[in-house]
């Protein structure tokens, strides 16, 4: 296999195209803000952003004008409240962006179908709710054995998915522990995959514990090594979630002006994640304490 390590700027320039359907997943855990910031810096546009929880990361990308459409299931600031940039775009008629809305299960099903190369995924869901009434892509399918009517959602095949991992080798074999979200499904569903890792490790580290591998290098287009690349999200065993930042964002995003100031300083005002960390040395307080698991025997 060939060495796929590049820097974030190269990865985004070569693999993210205007108009792409882009996925940066990670459920609370391992959300790759570093990739989002570089996409904003490079002025990518007309993206369709898909993600269960748009979270601050897509609030920032929406505010920066990168997107024409959002596919999602929960658009809030977890534990805090609203996503204000998102709300400014949808609390008006007509909306300033397209939206396509599911529940979490529906989004998980869309990624699962995409990863399995199936055109749809069946689920027993949505009866008695107003969700399908506002989304024509939630249809029904009849079970050929029981005759039951089930909900069905179409497979989602992103052009590009960014997977943040704790560690990866230079070929893209990526290992994750802690919350797994739908990162594996999103990666296998995607035409192209960028792995962003906290730490570059030798292939032998991966081979030392193969059950930890989330995605194999064979489906990966590029590897970016970006310590602290998920801040203000977190990486189990590397650094804690910056809950203060999530609270602060509620104020930052409340007006277009304060949000723009944030982007000017922390996104456009730095060249890369390294500089982002340099101007915020206080973030090092989030470094994880050690709670190391014990090894298991892979011998025979």
């Amino acid at each position, binding site marked *: 296999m060939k060495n796929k390590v590049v820097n974030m700027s190269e990865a985004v320039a070569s693999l993210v195209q205007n108009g792409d359907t882009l996925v940066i997943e990670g459920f*609370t855990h391992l959300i790759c803000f570093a990739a989002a910031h570089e996409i904003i810096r490079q002025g990518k546009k007309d993206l369709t952003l898909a993600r269960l929880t748009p979270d601050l990361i897509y609030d920032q990308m929406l505010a920066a004008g990168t997107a024409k459409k959002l596919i*999602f299931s929960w658009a809030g600031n977890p*534990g805090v409240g609203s996503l204000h940039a998102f709300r400014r775009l949808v*609390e008006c008629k007509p909306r300033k962006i397209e939206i396509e809305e599911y529940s979490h299960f529906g989004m*998980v099903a869309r990624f699962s179908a995409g990863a399995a190369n199936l055109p749809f995924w069946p689920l027993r869901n*949505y009866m*008695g709710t107003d969700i399908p009434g506002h989304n024509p892509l939630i249809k029904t399918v009849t079970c050929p054995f029981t005759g039951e009517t089930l909900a069905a959602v179409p497979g989602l095949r992103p052009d590009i998915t960014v997977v943040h991992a704790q560690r990866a080798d230079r070929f893209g074999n990526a290992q994750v522990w802690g919350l*797994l*979200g739908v990162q594996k499904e999103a990666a296998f569903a995607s035409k192209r995959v960028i792995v962003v890792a906290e730490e570059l490790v030798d292939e032998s580290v991966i081979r030392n514990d193969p059950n930890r591998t989330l995605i194999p290098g064979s489906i990966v287009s590029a590897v970016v090594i970006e310590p602290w690349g998920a801040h203000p999200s977190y990486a189990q065993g590397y650094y*804690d979630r910056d809950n203060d930042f999530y609270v602060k964002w509620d104020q930052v995003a409340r007006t277009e002006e304060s949000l723009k100031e944030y982007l000017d300083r922390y996104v456009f005002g730095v060249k890369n994640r390294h500089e982002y960390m340099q101007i915020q040395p206080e973030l090092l307080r989030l470094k994880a304490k050690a709670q190391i698991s014990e090894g298991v025997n892979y011998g025979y």
Partner: protein
Amino acid sequence: MAIEPSADYTPSELMTVQAARELPDGAVVFVGIGLPNLACNLARATHAPNLCMIYESGAVGAIPDRVPPSIGDPSLVTGSLMVASMSEIFQFFLQNGKIEVGFLGGAQIDKYGNLNTTVVGSYDAPKVRLPGSGGACEIAIFAQRTLVVMKLNKRAFPEKVDFITSPGMRSLGKSRSEWGMPGGGPVKVITDKCIMEPNPTTGELEVSALYPGATIENVQENVGWKLSVRSPLGTVEPPNATEVKLLREVLDPDRLHIK
């Protein structure tokens, strides 16, 4: 355990205690953040040490050593029994009927227990755009029973919600069994003044117990439909000193959730 009643308690504390008491020991509970999380931890610290807390983020059997600000907090993973992928959480746990109790809340609940966490006003021209379903829709459909925890307020308890995100006992003209919903729906709505339960025949939420000091009039003036009242009305044991002390000193010392 002390059974002496607490000298004082807030409405949030009262609601949390009522919710905790609904959780039998050993139950498998799908936990949301905020008061439900506190209620589960209170139950674990008192009568239900073997409660199995599952989060939609994938943490199973979590024993967080801090108050988790989000359902994906790292403290829910460290020391948990299992990390499941979200595909497993929704398919193998929820859709498969393995979740006994689910917690729900929302901006609005209507007389059939339908919940709205999507939009106030119309979907295409929202007055307030809320976050949306997340996992709430499927929790409402699949959990063997759900508990709703919400403060009374006329805008929050309309006769009909603006958008049904999570179906209650009757929605879009059909009952749960007519829709073929596997779960039991909202068996109790825990408010700050009373407990409501669905009428077994009509599915309408009716007052089943009043808190000490509350009156039916207090409740009715905060609810958008004509309330039925069960007879005899159930009673509610106020929080005891142990419960209040645990909430204040151990489970939410920074008052993140209990105001």
